């Protein structure tokens, strides 16, 4: 079989980028983001990207790097947080923005990967989010129709992976990564560790290899957005 395992993020991305493409990028805040593939996207010079990602990174890190270079034309997100460059581009009209409720975003991505064209959710009924969408009553309650989302490429970050593309995530770094892995026409995964095929317990694989086209070992800064600690009481 064509080997899924590639030496680095640049070679993993080779031949897959084109201007105007739609990219799903995993992570919540800066937690579990595909740091290496974001850098490779930046180096590729691809322009006019629509990025589907729960958040938009911060100035100088994560997706903030692609905002800096103005490679992103549109974001589909639930919360864009504190990002000055984002705010500047958005307010000047350079950057388009589509907000989705976080659960609706997660479900739309799952639906896209699962062949579900649309689904009815209570989330957003009677709000701006439901404007222009069908609302329908089931069992006396109103629901709004949301559609599945797919992407030309999804880039995800996992903890461990093998050459078959089987992936395991760690703690809350899982977040949007598993659904995005299913909803890209092509999915590239970056992992902290490549393990031999057979080393992962088959009952415990979060993303089966069928969803992963290319896999690469990355190196990770894992920047923390809100370092919050408690003090140890004196012994």
């Amino acid at each position, binding site marked *: 079989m064509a080997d899924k395992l590639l030496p680095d993020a640049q070679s993993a991305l080779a031949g897959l980028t084109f201007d105007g493409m739609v990219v799903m990028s995993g992570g919540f805040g*800066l937690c579990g983001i595909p740091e290496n593939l974001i850098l490779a996207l930046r180096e590729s010079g691809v322009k006019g990207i629509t990025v589907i990602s729960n958040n938009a990174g911060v100035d100088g890190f994560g997706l903030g790097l692609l905002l800096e270079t103005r490679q992103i034309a549109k974001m589909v997100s639930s919360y864009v947080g504190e990002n000055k460059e984002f705010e500047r581009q958005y307010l000047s009209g350079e950057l388009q923005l589509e907000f989705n409720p976080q659960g609706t975003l997660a479900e739309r991505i799952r639906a896209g990967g699962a062949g579900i064209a649309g689904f009815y959710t209570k989330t957003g009924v009677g709000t701006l989010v439901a404007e222009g969408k069908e609302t329908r009553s089931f069992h006396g309650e109103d629901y709004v129709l949301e559609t599945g989302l797919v992407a030309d490429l999804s880039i995800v970050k996992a903890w461990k992976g093998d050459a078959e593309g089987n992936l395991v995530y760690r703690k809350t770094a899982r977040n949007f990564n598993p659904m995005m892995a299913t909803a890209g026409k092509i999915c590239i995964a970056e992992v902290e560790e490549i393990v031999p095929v057979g080393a992962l317990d088959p009952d415990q694989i979060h993303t089966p290899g069928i969803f992963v086209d290319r896999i690469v070992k990355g190196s990770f800064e894992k920047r923390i957005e809100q370092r919050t600690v408690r003090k140890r009481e004196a012994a």
Partner: protein
Amino acid sequence: MPWTRDQLAQRAARELRDGFYVNLGIGIPTLVANYIPDDMEVTLQSENGMLGMGPFPYDDEIDPDLINAGKQTITALPKSSFFSSADSFAMIRGGHIALSILGAMEVSERGDLANWMVPGKMVKGMGGAMDLVAGVKRVVIVMEHTARDGAPKLLHACSLPLTGVRVVDLVITDLGVFEIDKAGDRPMALIELADGVSLDEIRAKTEAAFEPRLRQAA
């Protein structure tokens, strides 16, 4: 005396019940975790994919892979489990969370909630708030009774874009506690007053119609 932030959190904690699965919003709601009674087991859900949130870590325990929905570093507990965002919101939307405690910009007398967007200001996004109010069984709002300029926040109808329609069950402000019959027709009721706050004061600072149905504070 209006309630302090900690008193608000303490009052909100009285809505907890043993065995509850609870989602706490950012800000004052997060403080509620400090007031869970010792004899009560409450499991905190974090919508970024965790059940059984522990306290903030000690400095040497920090793990960048372990954060809450406010992006703060946290810890896990023996009972914890991790899952995807899709599974997390399936849990929320599916009605499996008993209680959510959230902040608000405005609440209407019918239980409409606005807490994500001020037109003309840079909008950060609704995050998971719309999913929480649509899916969680009981929604408790904790907020200052009035805006900084003194304008009422408990209104006949919200003026800001909504987070949800008829979703709020209880509003705890620094002046008192209001009950909303979100699924029915009973008017909003003032059920508690902060110590030293008069009915007249609260009437003056509230636009929403309400009827006093005061009970003895516990």
